[in-house]
């Protein structure tokens, strides 16, 4: 079957989709967006987390046909999404009009990581504040869990700009990391929150 939906602000069409296929499979294998990771395919690890109509979900548990006509944001579109949110005061989905030309094209999204900048610091690559915070806090080791954590953490900060540690733990409780022991991830989210609430230019 064919599925039409919006990915990172741009309309996309996926063809030859098997009826039992997951959104995660469509993103990775049909649209060439491997940012969302496939680790467990059973909702346990959160590495496939994307936003579906703004809500964080495990894309491995959403049937492809269920996203027809709906909006998905993946980690590849997170930088743009965060930028628009900053500019449009909260609405980054494009759902509140105006954002026709906005969003991340499939090609841009596919090439997101391939810019040849310093891979240690991500310098030169446009990043969302939460991505910058993860790099600055050293919250990335193998990186497999990172895309899902970024999407989940970014959504929490959108809802709750001044989270307590308990809020952060709760919001990220559906994301497993096998490397970091979570402390640096906590640091990264605290850092992003602090930067977000600091006055401009500080």
């Amino acid at each position: 079957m064919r599925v039409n939906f919006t990915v990172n602000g741009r309309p996309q069409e996926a063809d030859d989709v098997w009826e039992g296929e997951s959104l995660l499979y469509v993103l990775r294998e049909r649209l060439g967006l491997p940012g969302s990771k496939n680790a467990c395919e059973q909702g346990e690890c959160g590495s496939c987390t994307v936003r579906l109509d703004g809500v964080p979900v495990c894309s491995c548990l959403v049937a492809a046909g269920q996203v027809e006509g709906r909006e998905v944001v993946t980690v590849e579109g997170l930088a743009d999404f965060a930028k628009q949110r900053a500019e449009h005061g909260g609405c980054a989905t494009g759902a509140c009009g105006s954002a026709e030309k906005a969003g991340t094209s499939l090609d841009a999204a596919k090439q997101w990581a391939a810019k040849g900048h310093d891979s240690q610091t991500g310098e030169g690559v446009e990043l969302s504040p939460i991505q910058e915070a993860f790099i600055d806090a050293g919250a990335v080791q193998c990186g497999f869990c990172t895309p899902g954590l970024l999407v989940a953490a970014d959504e929490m900060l959108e809802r709750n700009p001044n989270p307590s540690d308990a809020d952060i733990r709760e919001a990220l409780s559906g994301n497993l990391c096998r490397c970091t022991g979570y402390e640096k991830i906590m640091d990264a989210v605290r850092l992003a929150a602090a930067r977000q609430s600091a006055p401009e230019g500080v």
Partner: protein
Amino acid sequence: MDFLRPASWEEALAAKAEHPTAVPIAGGTDVMVEINFDHRRPEYLLDLNRIGELSEWEVGEESVRLGASVPYTQIMENLRGELPGLALASHTVASPQIRNRGGVGGNLGTASPAGDAHPALLAAGAEVEVESVRGSRLIPIDEFYTGVKRNALAADELIRAVHVKKADGPQQYSKVGTRNAMVIAVCAFGLALHPRTRTVRTGIGSAAPTPVRAKTAEDFLNAALEEGGFWDNGKIITPSVAKQFADLCSAACNPIDDVRGTASYRRHAVGIMARRTLTWTWESYRGTAAATEGVA
């Protein structure tokens, strides 16, 4: 496989009548796991996401009519006052991502003895509103669970909503697992005080082939509370009464040994949870009763 996408409830009922083997998919948090792991290859998937009213709820005089697809997150955020037991149970389900998708309709569809909504529904009192092209009926929650992962739905029926009694007293939900998030219950216990009818209701999860109420324990406690005038005098419940109640709750279990725990551990833990949830809710009832008296 065919993917059916009804745009309305009537269309969904018609599709289910035409294809009784079609597997409804709401949040997909049970169905997709089975498909991803090839445990299930349904001929038809029946998507319920486009049917808006399934994600809505109405707060009535006596009960809340909770649409089958209302996600756990919404229950936690919006219905904590009316359905405290179910809201607490919802909060123990999996993770934010799963709670954003999964709901009570899917929990009832799967009818796992470990499903977290069940003990809360049993304790609060609920009816499941199911419908087919033949008509609609209300199934009392006590009659809904018919076996391990089996329920009272006919092949052409869909769950429209659950009518859950609004709380008229304190409710609690307790769950044993190895960590706080992402854990299927080793066993679970729901308890609701109903001061208006002067009754206590219970629900036990993961300790019998189906979710069950501890009816003998309820009868014992209701009689003991009445006899001692506890509802009026607001005294603390006598330890011997609480112990007897806990023992009878343990006795209501019919558990098995499995990877998550042994039968005897489950029986033991249910007794502990029964005593604790009774104490918590009763303390809260006494507190509010005393406060009301103080004001008056």
